[in-house]
């Protein structure tokens, strides 16, 4: 099925915001085209649920349709869209039964008194190509990200997956830039450890065969 290419014949974010503030109603369809993928994928990465992400996308679009003209322009429009998407996704998560989270401290690197790591570190970075598109690896990665505590998870998704700057992430979440950096580092350490365990098991399994 073919869908219109949202990048063709659309307004830039800046023009779109001007039109919204001026009450130019014709821009709503373009607004939806420009933002719905961003809204849906961010929500899906936070909730990992198709139906919740569809609901969140609809709720956010409705807010943009109804309140877009009141946007003050104090921060970037996209930051505002990200912020309301995160809030709507958290509302969905709150209504769901809580699953026990792994403590991030248990997974961060541990050191002996000399400052050396306890972990036996194996370099699997050269062997990821063949695994990258396998369903098993994909599931493992998604599960590892889902296990991250919320504070670290949202920073990791905005910064490393969406590719936003530390500045912008700090602005969206209303936290300092050092806090963004520290949460991102902790998230990466956590995920590295989870993936290391997986690749370690994968290698052992292959060697047994």
């Amino acid at each position, binding site marked *: *099925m073919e*869908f219109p290419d949202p990048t063709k014949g659309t307004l830039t974010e800046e023009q779109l915001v001007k039109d919204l503030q001026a*009450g130019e*109603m*014709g821009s*709503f*369809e373009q607004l*939806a085209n420009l933002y*719905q*993928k961003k809204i*849906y*994928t961010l929500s*899906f*990465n936070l909730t990992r649920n*198709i139906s919740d*992400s*569809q609901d969140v*996308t*609809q709720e956010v*679009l*409705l807010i943009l*349709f*109804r309140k877009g003209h009141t946007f003050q322009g104090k921060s970037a429009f996209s930051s505002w869209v990200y912020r309301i998407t995160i809030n709507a996704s958290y509302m969905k998560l709150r209504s769901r039964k809580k699953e026990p989270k792994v403590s991030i401290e248990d997974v961060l*690197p541990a*050191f002996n008194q*000399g*400052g*050396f*790591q306890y972990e*036996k*570190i*194996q*370099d*699997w*970075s*050269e062997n*990821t190509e063949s695994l*990258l598109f396998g369903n098993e*690896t*994909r599931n493992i*990665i*998604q599960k*590892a*990200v889902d296990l991250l505590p919320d504070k670290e998870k949202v920073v*990791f*998704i905005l910064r*490393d*997956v969406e*590719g936003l700057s530390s500045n912008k992430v700090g602005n969206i979440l209303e936290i300092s830039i050092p806090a963004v*950096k520290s949460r*991102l*580092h902790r998230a*990466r*350490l956590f*995920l*590295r450890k989870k*993936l*290391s365990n997986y690749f370690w098991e994968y290698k052992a399994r292959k060697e047994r065969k």
Partner: protein
Amino acid sequence: MICCKECIELLYSYLEGELSAENETALEDHFADCPPCIAFVNTYRSTTLLCKNTLKTNDIPDTVKIKLKEFVDKNKPDVL
């Protein structure tokens, strides 16, 4: 000479290119003598790439696209 613990603390800033020249030299001196920390940096970098490539490919399913289009058509404010 810095230890592995300090090395990992500096890793984020090192990869962002935000370290002072002094700290960068100290870190690289440590790497020269510590293969496990080199493996750690390599896998830290790969983790970011793997996760990004995996999560970025979560596109909107076609069935949801259809529902969203119907929703937009129904709810977009009337053109003045």
